[in-house]
């Protein structure tokens, strides 16, 4: 058995680790576990910083039988934050019994879908519903989504960060102008505009700097605010009210900006995104004993939660899955009373969990990996990575990134403020998602893979810490043209 402590703070993990070891030894002694199973077991102790997440205190992830040992691949994940003192042994016994039963018992969980890739899971439909019906959610909770963010506000809007960003951009314009390479129209694109606050601040600062230095770039500026939600774009207008003559509002798919903006291919001098990539559908991969597996998931409600929700909304338990499906299709107005619909949505989301299984990568279709990333590239990256590793594939972020780069003018650059894992070793030092942030999903972005895809597309990818707020986990990705 390998016990992996993915969390570096001594307490309370030490006590839990001791409990885990004792429990598994007792399972072995009592004959609940075979020796070979015990020897192959990996137990991960995590501390999930997202209070709302998709895990129960103990989760067992299974894979197909290993060729050599003829035993199922078993990984046990313990969320040390959720562990109730004294209840761990019982939890482990219950989940191990469930994992090793064939077929797995259904009575303790209400499944809302079949096993699927995480990016296809209905969990992401909840995420989509949240952004499309943000106003409903905010009305019900009585607070704006920004208050759910760490620090209670978006780091996109930090005035010093925006000022530095504008200064860098102005310097680029000046340099291009000195080389007679500044285009007649200066296109800037922001994807995922939120309330438009950052765009407003950026434009204020740019106009001021342009005036202060007498460069007269403003009349040539075309600032495009792009978002997949028309409602969000509408809300952002007021924030850029003073600059409407410079702004265009475009509904676009964050996965594929070039599709909407193909007329701007090789024309945009600066693209900016804040906290978009961490909210795009993703996958996770596991390397175990030299073999790669994809993590497949199935959304479920613990049966006790399902009963509680059924009772609260006067529904038969058997109707919950269908009602969830209608909610995701039609929104909260599927309920006769919209507020009841929102309440149902919030309760289900709160209770929603994901169970997992591992599927060997070679059993998946060729196009499982996102465009720009070949399995041989992945193998090359993993050559120097820790041998057993679970990491994000960040398929949505990679797709978005790859479909944004073609917009860039030569020497134009992309800047992304987000939560990035920039070294695969970091995956062993802490939990990096997915978690729940209000009604949305948050999951860290694999910067190592972005760097690889960027280099192959002709851009070096760099990461700088977001030093504007102490303790911030945000990094700033920026690209430079690769020679």
């Amino acid at each position: 058995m390998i016990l992996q402590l993915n969390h570096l703070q001594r307490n309370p993990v030490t006590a839990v680790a001791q409990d885990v070891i004792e429990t598994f030894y007792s399972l072995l002694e009592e004959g609940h576990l075979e020796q070979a199973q015990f020897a192959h077991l990996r137990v991960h102790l995590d501390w999930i910083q997202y209070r709302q997440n998709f895990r129960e205190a103990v989760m067992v992830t299974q894979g197909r039988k290993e060729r050599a040992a003829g035993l199922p691949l078993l990984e046990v994940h313990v969320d040390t934050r959720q562990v109730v003192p004294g209840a761990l042994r019982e939890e482990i016994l219950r989940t191990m019994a469930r994992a090793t039963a064939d077929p797995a018992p259904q009575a303790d969980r209400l499944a809302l879908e079949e096993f699927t890739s995480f990016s296809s899971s209905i969990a992401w439909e909840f995420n989509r519903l949240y952004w499309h019906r943000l106003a409903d959610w905010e009305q019900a909770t009585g607070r704006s989504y920004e208050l759910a963010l760490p620090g209670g506000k978006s780091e996109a809007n930090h005035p010093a960060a925006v000022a530095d960003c504008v200064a860098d951009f102005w310097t680029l314009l000046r340099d291009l102008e000195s080389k007679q390479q500044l285009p007649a129209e200066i296109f800037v694109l922001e994807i995922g505009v939120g309330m438009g606050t950052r765009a407003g601040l950026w434009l204020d600062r740019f106009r001021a700097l342009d005036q202060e230095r007498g460069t007269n770039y403003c009349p040539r500026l075309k600032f495009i605010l792009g978002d997949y939600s028309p409602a969000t774009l509408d809300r952002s207008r007021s924030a850029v009210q003073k600059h409407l003559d410079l702004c265009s509002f475009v509904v676009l798919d964050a996965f594929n900006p070039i599709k909407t903006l193909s007329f701007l291919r090789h024309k945009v001098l600066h693209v900016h995104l804040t906290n978009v990539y961490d909210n795009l559908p993703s996958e996770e991969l596991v390397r175990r004993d030299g073999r790669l597996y994809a993590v497949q998931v199935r959304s479920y409600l613990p049966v006790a939660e399902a009963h509680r929700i059924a009772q609260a909304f006067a529904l038969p338990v058997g109707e919950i899955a269908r009602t969830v499906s209608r909610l995701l299709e039609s929104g909260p107005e599927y309920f006769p009373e919209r507020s009841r619909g929102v309440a149902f949505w919030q309760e289900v989301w709160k209770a929603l969990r994901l169970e997992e299984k591992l599927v060997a990568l070679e059993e998946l279709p060729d196009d499982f990996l996102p465009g720009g990333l070949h399995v041989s590239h992945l193998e090359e990256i993993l050559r120097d990575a820790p041998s057993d590793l679970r990491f994000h594939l960040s398929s949505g972020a990679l797709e978005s990134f790859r479909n944004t780069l073609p917009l860039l003018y030569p020497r134009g650059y992309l800047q992304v403020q987000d939560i990035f894992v920039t070294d695969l070793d970091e995956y062993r030092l802490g939990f990096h998602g997915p978690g729940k942030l209000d009604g949305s999903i948050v999951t860290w972005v694999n910067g190592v893979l972005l760097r690889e895809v960027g280099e192959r597309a002709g851009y070096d990818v760099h990461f700088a810490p977001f030093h504007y707020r102490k303790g911030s986990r945000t990094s700033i990705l920026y690209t430079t043209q690769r020679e």
Partner: protein
Amino acid sequence: MSLPILPTTVVGSYSMPGWLERLKTEYFARRISRHDLDEIHDTAVKAAIKDQELAGVDILTDGELRRDNMIDYFVERLPGVQIDRSSKKFYYDFYDSAVRGTLPMAPLGLVDDFRFLRACTDRETKICITGPHSLTKRIRNEFYPSEEAFAMDIARVMNPELKELVKAGARWIQIDEPYYSGFPGDLSWGVKALNALVEEVDAKIAVHICYGNRYGKPSWEGSYRYLFPRILDAKVQQLTLEFARRGGEDMDLFREFACPFELGVGVIDVKTQAVETPELVAERIRKALEVVPVERLFVLPDCGCFHLPRDIAFAKLSAMVEGTRLVRKELGH
């Protein structure tokens, strides 16, 4: 060999297959031998030639599939250029190279490539050479008093190789000078070095100038106006320029400056995977015919097809040939 009117050709490189890319990287990681890599290159080059034939292209190249990129192939062969760090993460990366003394004279080995190409096809063939200006931009000069002096010496060393190519039967030689567009201020000495390179080389000489194609994207933007009138001093017969992606606005410069050269008109955008229709190609050729007489017009992609997937590259070349046929037909051929 007689060519039809509006001869079709390629700018040089053909699609780099993913498997070849991976094998090249394997070679740099010392996981396959040089001998194996040479055999792989031979096979890939034959396939590239066959694809061009099947697409119906009139003047073929070897697809430049032996080349890691347009610079390093020459860096490895130019005597006196030192490669300081020969390992690469990707085969496509540039070497870190420098010149620290006068370049000695020595053959570059391009004749062997050309002979291989000639042996693989009955069609007209072309060999492409990276020009001295572009090479000076990637090889660190630690010896010559100026970039111009360095470029002139590269031209001195490479000129005999071009003459050897002619002796081996080369009738079409293309000099690639995309870096002109990134450094327009260098044009006067760039043209001087070009002329030294091709001096007394008895072949049809084209110079290809685009806005860069590293990683399938432009390295610079602007207008070809910077070329004029200085480019008129070049001792070449043909300019091949990028028009499909950028639009044909700059074609008028040919008329404005009464440009005497043949025009190799780019009608295929190699920086997108969208395949042009033959009708669009025909339209682009007709536009070029408004400024250049038919006997001086050649039809090409904007640049090499290196970064395109093979099926896309093949479809684009096929569309180019088909579009050219449409115009030939209109012209009674």
